[in-house]
């Protein structure tokens, strides 16, 4: 009996130690993910804020950690990818971004947050700790420089602190340049990338657009010298093409492979599509009559100008202000209207669906700036200034330039046998509604309050959330897989952050 007991006890103990684990018929293994024809050992990301990981109106530490190149590089590590470095951000101790000059002067605001007690996005009430004087020379694998336009990539001195007061240098690049006189492209090439993503061109139109069209369209002027461009100008398409081609040549000179990406359309950014052109509800005829009476002189003047042959009937129609029951269009300034100031008539009209009101106008529209005169209301009795609206004409300028840039990108890609990630199409989907692999839907459906979990765009209305950057990284993976026969795992956007919600600020 005892003997049997011993044997059994032994057997039972043995069985519990053996406790063999279950095995998959096809377990995940190292050789499942591959780089195909590509070589991920030295991946360098070239671009602007979208490459840097800029979100919620600034670049901050955790935003940078979730930049699309950082996400992509992490996946590449399963297929021969090497270390991926990003510009130094350890000094962003509060994870709020922004930047100061010499310890105190704020030169870039910290991140946008939602203040629940106010209900709207606003800058977090903290002082940035990132200092433009604290230079940590690169080069880094992530060569995304917020604010960079195509010509900045090859501009000497763009990383030189001495040029900052002249607005010829970029505070982000100052901190990361390997030396003050190096260009961004020089720092890229010095790393001898085996693989690259190249996504540029957004700022070449967007600054013009986000400023509400305050700037010059250099396609209309034909100015080919970018050193004379103002910050809000649209870059000439030929300038873009020449530099783009030169950079792609340099990137591929040693046989490196990579992906190019298109520039998003202005109307795919919630910054331009969240505020409707007709946000003025009128439920009372007396109110409409009163407003129309206020514009009776102006409307009468327009009829005189028409009778005098100064303007076309179309322009007279467009300029006639008319309020009625229901949703009414904003009254706006439009510099492209015929100048009738010598008749005492301002260049104003009511907005149409072709005009795009920018997101910051939310805090201006409907406000009476003079407390002693509540009748004067922005957007109704005070025409909204040019800086708040991208007029139909300006939208056309931006669209034409964007289309020109994207045509250049596609042409050069075809010549160089490089794949194009159509980020213009993706970001349109990210705005209007994108259903991803797991069935969840991502949108830019701001401010409805019920959908905070699935927002693709951050509070600045232009840059994606980290969730959006995860979707972008997945798109790059798709393109890399298709073109180079690689196989990489995807990421789940829902595991990435969006923005902070604070009870108060």
């Amino acid at each position: 009996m005892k003997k049997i007991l011993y044997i059994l006890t032994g057997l039972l103990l043995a069985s519990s130690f053996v406790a063999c684990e279950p095995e998959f018929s096809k377990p995940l293994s190292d050789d499942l993910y591959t780089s195909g024809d590509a070589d991920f050992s030295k991946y360098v990301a070239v671009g602007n804020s979208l490459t840097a990981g800029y979100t919620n109106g600034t670049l901050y530490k955790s935003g940078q950690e979730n930049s699309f190149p950082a996400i992509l590089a992490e996946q590449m590590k399963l297929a021969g990818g090497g270390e991926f470095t990003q510009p130094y951000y350890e000094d962003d101790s509060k994870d709020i971004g922004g930047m100061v000059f010499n310890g105190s002067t704020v030169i870039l605001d910290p991140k946008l947050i939602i203040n629940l007690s106010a209900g709207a996005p606003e800058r977090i009430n903290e002082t940035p700790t990132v200092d433009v004087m604290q230079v940590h020379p690169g080069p880094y694998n992530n060569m995304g420089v917020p604010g960079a336009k195509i010509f900045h990539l090859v501009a000497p001195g763009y990383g030189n602190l001495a040029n900052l007061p002249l607005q010829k240098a970029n505070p982000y690049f100052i901190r990361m340049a390997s030396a003050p006189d190096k260009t961004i492209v020089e720092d890229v090439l010095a790393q001898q990338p085996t693989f690259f993503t190249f996504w540029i061109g957004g700022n070449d139109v967007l600054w013009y657009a986000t400023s509400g069209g305050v700037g010059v369209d250099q396609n209309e002027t034909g100015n080919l010298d970018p050193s004379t461009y103002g910050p809000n100008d649209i870059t000439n398409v030929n300038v873009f093409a020449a530099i783009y081609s030169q950079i792609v040549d340099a990137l591929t000179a040693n046989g490196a492979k990579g992906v190019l990406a298109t520039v998003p359309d202005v109307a795919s950014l919630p910054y331009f599509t969240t505020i409707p052109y007709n946000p003025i509800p009128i439920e009372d005829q007396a109110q409409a009559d009163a407003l129309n009476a206020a514009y009776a002189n102006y409307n009468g003047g327009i009829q005189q100008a028409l009778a005098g042959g100064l303007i076309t009937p179309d322009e007279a129609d467009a300029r006639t202000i008319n309020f009625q029951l229901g949703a009414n269009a904003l009254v706006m300034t439009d510099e492209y209207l015929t100048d009738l100031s010598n008749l005492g008539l301002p260049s104003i009209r009511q907005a149409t669906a072709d005009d795009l009101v920018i997101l910051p106008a939310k805090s201006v529209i409907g406000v009476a700036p003079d407390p002693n005169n509540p009748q004067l209301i922005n957007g109704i009795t005070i025409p909204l200034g040019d800086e708040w609206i991208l007029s139909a004409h300006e939208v056309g300028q931006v669209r034409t330039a964007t289309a020109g840039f994207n045509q250049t990108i596609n042409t050069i890609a075809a010549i160089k046998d490089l794949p194009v990630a159509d980020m213009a199409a993706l970001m349109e989907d990210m705005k209007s509604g994108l259903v991803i692999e797991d069935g969840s839907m991502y949108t830019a459906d701001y401010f409805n309050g019920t959908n905070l979990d699935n927002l693709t765009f951050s509070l600045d209305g232009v840059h994606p959330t980290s969730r959006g950057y995860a979707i972008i990284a997945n798109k790059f993976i798709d393109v890399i897989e298709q073109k180079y026969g690689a196989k990489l795992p995807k990421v789940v956007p829902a595991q990435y952050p969006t923005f902070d919600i604070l009870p108060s600020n």
Partner: protein
Amino acid sequence: MKKILIVLAFLSFGSSYAGGYRVALQGQRMLGMAHAGLSVFKNAETAFFNPAGIAFLDKKLSVSFGVSGIMSHVKFQNEYYNWAYETDNPIGTPFYLNVAYQTSDNVSLGLAIYTPFGSSSVWNDWVGSDIVNDISMKVFYIQPSLTYKFSEMLSMSASLIMAYGEVSYNKNINRYLADEQGNKTNVQLESGMTGAAGYALSMAFKPSKNVSFGINYRSKVIIDAKYGKAEFNNVPAFLSDKLKTTAFSAELPMPAELGVGMSVKPIDKLLLAFDYNYTYWSVYKELRINFKNDLPTSVSAKNYKNTSTMRFGAEYQVNDKIFVRAGYYYDESPLTKDHFSPETPSLDSNNYTFGLGYQMKKWAIDFSLLYVDGKERTDYTYVNGEGPSAHRFGGTYVSNAIIPGIGFTYSIN
């Protein structure tokens, strides 16, 4: 009574390894032969398997008790996202106590205390945390029975079932939400020990010395936890007035089970048993958690299906004292396509059992060993109902379990 309940509650119950959250470990002697005990009337274990069979025991009084140790592993992977995780389940130790007593030639009494259901899944720090971090369900039944022997061939029995259960469940609020320090916001649901009642009916038929039949029906029991407590941890400041400790109610159904069994002795020393169990899992349609404050009701669809289990067992008597046993059963998972949730990752399984019994004058000791070999399955579950954040979660699962057990029986005339 209360003290007993507390003691019982302290015994941990173990990962579910049989279909759904059924735990079929109610007698070591029978477990050695595939747990096919519906028509095997050898000792007090029949007070669980088929109380009608108490009438055919050859001892007036028999008491059996035992315990098992469940060591289970579940692995999960998903190639699309490069996910690979596995459970870190604690060792479960379900127990039983069975008493069979023939009070007269015709009337017998039985008592079975056992853990028919239970589950424990611990998925630490993993990608499905918005579905489950860890869950533990403990259910035990106390089943007194009355058996009447109509003839030398036929007996029938009726039992009352007093069920007690509690569930403890932790999951994250969603896939991202965290407090200011980055700790994920989660909810801990504690149902508290809740009682419910059911019944069982059974019949034993022994037309000859070498052939027996048995039928047993155990009713469903709905454990209705009315006074559960939901506690939220790591809540970010902006939600602190929403995610507050609150009461909740939820119903958890224990399905009914019908079993028919037959056993034969083709030769004197060999006993063969066959059982068929049909479990009415379709009662588990959804898990609905009603919070007492204004939090929205949480509903997750389960849509379980009824399942069959086929059991084949054999016992060979080596000599007066030693019995060797072996068995096989095939167990179906009640989880339906697109409702495969990692909180109860039950797989179709091949099950192999071995047993050894040593019979003394009054005491007998039985060892059993069960190996559960779960069949790999790729499936999904849908999370968050409808709306933009509704999504599916899943991948490929595989599991196994090794379950040694020991039981004792004391029998006298």
